[in-house]
């Protein structure tokens, strides 16, 4: 560590803990508390990366998170900010964007042809021959900057957290610390979020007194109960102060996203130091004044041996003092104001060697420090709708007028002494606490579950803070030469001049054309210089040119933190443990995990048709409807009639949306006085519930109906097949299952397998004699087991969704969403008798009435001429010998019962007559024929089996 200075008070490193790491395979050492970059510089490393386009060598520039030249690969993690990430023992660090190595880089040859590769050059070439563009594209893609993704990277622990603080303070410099302390003292709950590893902001690299003040403020904040989050960033401010915080310092989570509904947000983001634009400004050894102070004071690292300092402000003077402290020979200090004072820098491939002045003199050096002004990182204020305003006398942008629940304080709003900053922070904290108290009061008073509020609402405090002074500052952006403006994008001021001359002369257009400000620091370093150069090129003022909008996030955040622990709810029925224990093949249907089959769906069909099968249909949507007006509701939402359904009756119905498109279907049974049970498709359960609530609340508020979803309150089992009556009969005493006593489409409530209140209805989705029983769900597994146990001699076997689908297709029942689609109106289902136009009103009626007079596609049953051909679902049906589409196969299976292929199809009316021969285009490109059947049901069209 040849560049390490002697130990000094207040440094961030712990010299007693030595950490070893590798840099491009070479073993190096650093101290605990070092950043990767400070450790590298301590070891004498000057080149940390190569630039994107010209592959120029780059060294440390700002020595903080935003340093554009210090992005490295650490193990499987790409794009690590080396000047921010703390060193860890055993880290494997390598340079990115180098080919093949940092020292020898073949693409550096691009630098030689740089004058031809002006910004946006790729738009102007490679058009011809068109066939070659894909090859050029591959070459261009190798210039992509950035690290490598290891696709085997494990997804770490990333739980998120919600928070409801009164005040969030973004930035823990002197003003932010003071604001947090003052707000907490006034009773507010406060989260103080600091991007860096320690609180204190610029005090950390200031004088001894500065650092003592930072420590005192931290102690005061802790004592006041402020929740301090270091190495954490407020990444975004969204509607109604929904604030995102990326916490990188959580002991368990790799990176944690905290979502805070802040009553007040205080933005105390400080300032970011701007680089200066001149020829050679990207040579290793050119640094900002903040960078050298950080290296010296925080990490005890000597940034060079002989320095030239361009000092346009106090920070330049402070850098000179720090350099003196560190024993760096300050060869020359250039004052502000004279643009010609510094012309350019020259050097070798690894280091600056010489600075050239306007008067023709030169100065040898290995370090050039610039202090030319500040950028106010108004990103969070932008997100709150505020637009920054440029002040030429201070040579920077300032916040405009943020909304009342966002306050700015500290360096972002002005200059001042340490004490002035602290005082402004305190005033801001008090104001925030006062306003938060009002929000708190209102929230509590208007929230139903909250405790009742004591006392009158406090008055809403006005903003009476005295503004911080703005120190005069020369407008210094570019020397008399051209240099790099955007380091990460390799965009120079010359590129910007050229683009402006071409007509890309608004700040947004020039940004898009040159990609200036589009790189990893998103304009934190580059925006103001870009705007200033554009203003210069156009002969306008910076205020006239304006600035770009800063978008979230404030700092990059990992996909892991944003994704968090994945909450993807899944649902299972009460019978699921049995399915899993018995070799089920599961299928995901929406949120439900359902049994698809238990090995052989065709055999499940055969057994059901011959003996008896049971299937778990719990996901069927079930709604309990009670109240005197239920029949009116059913009449309004179903297309058919419901006013006369007797107790004990069950009826099938179709629902339409208001545009006449089929919404859902199902059966509803009349259980008792004013009491009905409605079933919906499993995927439509939530939609239908919301649909009913909407009608009851907004269109028919006078109706008395209570609707309650009870889908999983009842485990539903369908018992189907010739032996189903015998099987169910063995488990119930109080339900008379006689064919007359309990006829098709009726419902009974009774005891099954010892369980009371089981609802049983006779319906026939499978086409067999069948009973659907709805059992209180905690007893579902018991009843299922009893059915299997008592039906052994009857041949009972379970069947899954696939067998059910085959049987319903054999029976010709359509499925909403499969045989119908997003534009299928009710008549398409073919259920014309169920469309009761003589009813006064029902949802979708006008459209259905009109379409009935019109042409509409129809669902028909279809059988391929060749019984062994099973057309794929979605096969197109064509007009013979053409490619005109007249329909498509919507459902298709091989029927084990009939020993042939069977289908449902949607066809235009012209092709819907029974007996019509259809041309079906199979997926393999061949055409086959199929015939339209007379009935939807391929099997037992008279329904003798299910009515038996």
């Amino acid at each position, binding site marked *: 560590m040849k560049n390490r200075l002697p130990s000094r008070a207040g440094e961030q490193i712990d010299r007693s803990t030595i950490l070893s790491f590798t840099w491009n395979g070479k073993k190096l050492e650093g101290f605990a508390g070092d950043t990767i970059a400070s450790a590298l510089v301590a070891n004498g490393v000057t080149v940390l990366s190569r630039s994107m386009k010209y592959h120029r060598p780059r060294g440390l520039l700002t020595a903080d998170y935003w340093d554009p030249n210090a992005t490295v690969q650490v193990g499987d993690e790409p794009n690590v900010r080396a000047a921010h990430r703390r060193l860890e023992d055993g880290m494997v660090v390598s340079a990115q964007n180098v080919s093949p190595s940092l020292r020898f880089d073949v693409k550096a040859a691009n630098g030689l042809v740089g004058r031809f590769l002006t910004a946006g050059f790729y738009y102007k070439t490679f058009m011809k021959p068109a066939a070659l563009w894909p090859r050029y594209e591959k070459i261009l893609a190798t210039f992509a900057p950035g690290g490598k993704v290891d696709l085997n990277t494990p997804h770490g622990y990333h739980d998120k957290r919600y928070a*409801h603080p009164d005040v969030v303070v973004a930035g823990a410099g002197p003003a932010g610390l003071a604001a947090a302390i003052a707000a907490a003292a006034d009773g507010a709950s406060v989260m103080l979020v600091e991007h860096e590893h320690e609180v204190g902001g610029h005090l950390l690299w200031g004088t001894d007194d500065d650092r003592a003040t930072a420590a005192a403020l931290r102690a005061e904040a802790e004592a006041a109960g402020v929740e301090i989050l270091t190495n954490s960033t407020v990444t975004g401010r969204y509607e109604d102060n929904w604030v995102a915080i990326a916490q990188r310092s959580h002991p368990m989570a790799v990176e944690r996203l905290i979502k805070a509904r802040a009553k007040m947000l205080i933005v105390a983001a400080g300032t970011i130091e701007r680089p200066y634009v001149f020829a050679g400004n990207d040579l290793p050894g050119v640094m900002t004044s903040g960078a050298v102070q950080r290296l010296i004071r925080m990490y005890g690292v000597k940034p060079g041996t002989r320095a030239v300092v361009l000092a346009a402000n106090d920070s330049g003077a402070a850098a000179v003092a720090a350099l003196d402290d560190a024993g760096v020979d300050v060869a020359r200090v250039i004052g502000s104001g004279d643009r010609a004072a510094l012309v350019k820098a020259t050097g070798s491939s690894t280091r600056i060697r010489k600075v050239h002045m306007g008067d023709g003199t030169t100065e040898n050096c290995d370090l050039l420090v610039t202090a030319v002004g500040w950028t106010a990182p108004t990103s969070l204020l932008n997100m709150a709708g505020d637009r920054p305003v440029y002040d030429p006398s201070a040579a920077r942008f300032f916040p405009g007028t943020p909304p009342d629940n966002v306050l700015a304080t500290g360096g972002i709003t002005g200059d001042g002494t340490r004490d002035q900053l602290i005082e402004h922070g305190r005033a801001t904290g008090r104001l925030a606490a006062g306003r938060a108290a009002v929000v708190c009061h209102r929230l509590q008073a208007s*929230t139903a579950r909250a*405790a009742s509020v004591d006392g009158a609402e406090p008055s809403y405090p006005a903003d009476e803070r005295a503004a911080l002074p703005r120190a005069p500052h020369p407008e210094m952006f570019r020397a008399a030469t051209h240099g790099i403006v955007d380091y990460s994008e390799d965009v120079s001021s010359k590129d910007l001049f050229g683009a402006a001359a071409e007509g890309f002369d608004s700040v947004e257009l020039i940004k898009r054309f040159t990609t200036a400000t589009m790189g990893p620091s998103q304009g934190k370093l580059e925006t103001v210089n870009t705007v200033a150069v554009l203003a210069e090129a156009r002969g306008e003022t910076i205020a006239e040119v304006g600035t770009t909008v800063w978008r979230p996030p404030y700092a990059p955040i990992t996909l892991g933190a944003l994704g968090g622990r994945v*909450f993807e*709810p899944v649902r299972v029925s009460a019978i699921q443990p049995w399915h899993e224990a018995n070799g089920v093949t599961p299928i995901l249907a929406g949120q439900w995990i359902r049994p698809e089959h238990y090995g052989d769906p065709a055999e499940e069909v055969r057994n059901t048709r011959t003996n008896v099968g049971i299937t778990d249909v719990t996901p069927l949507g079930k709604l309990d409807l009670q109240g005197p007006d239920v029949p009116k509701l059913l009449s309004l939402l179903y297309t058919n009639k419901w006013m006369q359904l007797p107790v004990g009756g069950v009826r099938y119905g179709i629902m339409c949306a208001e545009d006449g498109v089929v919404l859902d279907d199902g059966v509803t049974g009349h259980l008792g006085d004013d009491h009905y049970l409605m079933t919906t498709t499993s995927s439509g359960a939530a939609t239908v519930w919301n649909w009913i609530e909407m009608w009851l609340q907004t269109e028919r508020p006078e109706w008395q109906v209570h609707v309650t979803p009870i889908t999983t*309150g009842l485990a539903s089992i369908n018992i189907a097949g010739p032996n189903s009556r015998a099987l169910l009969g063995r488990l119930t005493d109080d339900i008379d299952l006689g064919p007359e006593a309990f006829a098709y489409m009726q419902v009974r409530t009774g005891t099954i397998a010892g369980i009371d209140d089981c609802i049983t209805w006779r319906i026939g989705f499978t086409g067999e004699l069948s009973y659907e029983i709805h059992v209180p*769900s905690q007893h579902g597994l018991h009843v299922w087991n009893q059915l299997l146990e008592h039906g052994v001699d009857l041949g009972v076997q379970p069947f899954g969704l696939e067998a059910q689908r085959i049987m319903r297709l054999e029976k010709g029942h359509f499925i909403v969403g499969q045989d119908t689609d997003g534009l299928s109106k009710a008549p398409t289902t073919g259920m014309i008798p169920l469309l009761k136009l003589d009813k006064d009103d029902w949802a979708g009626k006008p459209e259905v009435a009109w379409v009935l007079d019109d042409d509409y596609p129809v669902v028909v049953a279809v059988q391929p001429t060749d019984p062994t051909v099973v057309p794929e679902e979605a096969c197109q049906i064509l007009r013979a010998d053409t490619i005109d589409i007249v329909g498509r196969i919507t459902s298709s299976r091989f029927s084990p019962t009939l020993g042939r292929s069977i289908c449902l199809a949607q066809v235009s009316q012209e092709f819907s007559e029974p007996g019509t021969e259809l041309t079906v285009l199979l997926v393999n490109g061949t055409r086959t024929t199929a015939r339209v059947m007379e009935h939807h049901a391929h099997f037992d069209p008279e329904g003798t089996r299910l009515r038996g």
Partner: protein
Amino acid sequence: MADLTLTNLTPTPKTTIRAAADTAAAAELGLTFGSSERRDGDLVVRIRPDEWLVIGSTATVDALDLSGFASRIDTTHSRLLFRLTGDLAAKVMEKVCSLDFADHMTPNGACAGASVAKTTCDIVRDDVDRVPSYLVLCDTSFRDYLRGAIEDAMTEFVGA
């Protein structure tokens, strides 16, 4: 310091009463929307403006006059019931639910419908011996998922 526990109380009888404002049942059940109360060992929760949930036994409900526009449904089987108890229970809840669980916003007895780990739940704060405790009710089909989600949220506080 009371450790965090998550218990499954689903078999506890639960009854939902829906009743219009002008009914005897509404008057008898009372409470303001968003609050709950223990009555003879049963927990009576006014979970929605026209809906009460009675957890414990059916005694309270059996005694109700359900004349007028009022209805009763046994929700024992349709509603999962978990109890999360512990001094840090609110911190766990704040990882899976966006409600503010501070004492003044969600005091003992408070109830609300809300999304928990992306499932729609009813939450009742029902402290046990002054230790914060939350009842979470949800559709029973989510049982494995929701338990997993809450237990996972607890891990970082276990042993804390």
